């Protein structure tokens, strides 16, 4: 098809160029065989090409690209290892930031007592709770620090004093709690009280100061 206003000699040349080139059928068949036999191209080929270019640019043709191939399980194990390393590094950093404390202090002269200040994440202090209940067979601690779960923090009887005791790591701040003595809920007689809790009950309060104060 000729374009409008184009010279005739140009039409002849373009017509000749557009004419289909005859190809021998044998040549065509051989070409198709070669194409079928050739390996399929992959993304690595592109990377290899770029690596080869880099080798030339950097002037280090003797360097060889190394590749690591991981199967699915090995890949999963490697990913798990990396996450564990990350969590461990984070834990270590947070622990060292908390500092160490060796002084023994008492939150109150009686009642819950701060026992030690071993370094721990989130600057927790060890607080000792104790209750004199010589006729009890089971005592548990419930409070804001254990979701008020009576199964979470049982006390044990101290053979020396006969009192029921337990030590907990608590973060700084105000915590409310109560004892469950053979199924009955009772406050700590040696601790400050909190106002009515809207459930017709009174709770005890322990205050844990920040280790830095």
């Amino acid at each position, binding site marked *: 098809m000729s374009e409008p206003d184009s010279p005739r000699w140009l039409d002849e040349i373009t017509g000749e160029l557009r004419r289909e080139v005859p190809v021998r059928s044998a040549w065509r068949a051989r070409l198709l065989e070669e194409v079928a036999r050739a390996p399929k191209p992959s993304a690595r080929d592109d990377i290899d090409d770029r690596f080869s270019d880099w080798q030339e640019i950097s002037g280090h043709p003797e360097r060889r*690209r*190394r590749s*690591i191939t991981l199967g699915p399980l090995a890949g999963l194990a490697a990913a798990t290892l*990396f*996450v*564990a*390393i*990350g*969590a*461990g*590094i*984070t*834990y270590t950093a*947070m622990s060292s930031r908390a500092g160490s404390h060796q002084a023994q202090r*008492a*939150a*109150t*002269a*009686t009642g819950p007592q701060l026992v030690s200040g071993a370094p721990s*994440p989130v600057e927790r202090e060890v607080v000792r709770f104790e209750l004199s209940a010589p006729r009890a067979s089971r005592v548990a601690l*419930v409070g*804001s620090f254990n*979701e*008020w*779960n*009576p199964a979470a923090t049982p006390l044990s009887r101290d053979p020396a004093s006969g009192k029921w005791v337990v030590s907990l790591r608590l973060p*700084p*701040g*105000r915590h*409310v709690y109560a004892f469950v003595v053979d199924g009955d*809920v009772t406050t700590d007689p040696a601790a*400050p*009280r*909190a*106002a*009515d*809790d*809207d*459930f017709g*009950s*009174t*709770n005890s*309060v322990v*205050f844990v*100061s920040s280790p830095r*104060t």
Partner: protein
Amino acid sequence: MIVRRLALAIAFACGAGAAGAQVVDRTLPSQLSPSTRATLERLIDSARVAGLPVDPLYSKVSEGVFRSADEPRVVAAVQRLARDLGDARTALGDSAAAEEITAGANALRAGLHPADLSRLREARGHKSGHPLTVALVVIADLATRGVPPAMAAASVNELVTRNVSDGSLLSFRQNVERDLVGGRSPASALDARTRAMIDDERRRP
């Protein structure tokens, strides 16, 4: 290239670990009905958006379940606490720590007036960055033992003005309790113990 990829992977893992360490997952007890859970979640979300501490609200729900309170009562308790937390924050100021706000809410619950909280904040002033938590705990405790809240607040106010330590405030509370158990009147017990503590502080080097 491999070393760089390994470094990136480790850096990513550290970030994921740090992010995981900061996320605290609080959930409501499973015993609650779906409608109550939805109501409580809305309440707690509102409190969170308002910048109030929400741990006490979750704890209140857990306590209600522990004490076998019926669900409307649990919801009412959480609503009331959220309101008290807001009032305490208003009285103590926006810079008040979460533990101060919680202790302040309990002091309001014990009968203290918000103006008393504001006076306590003024008494501390900017002399120290020390929270008023223990002072508020002591006031609430004395109020539960029959001491008029305003009277308890006035005494503690006096001690806070003189920068009495938390340990001394807790000892003060114990001594007043002992006097009350011994039959002394609240006014008499407070007056005597406040004077004694002020004298002790004066004698300190």
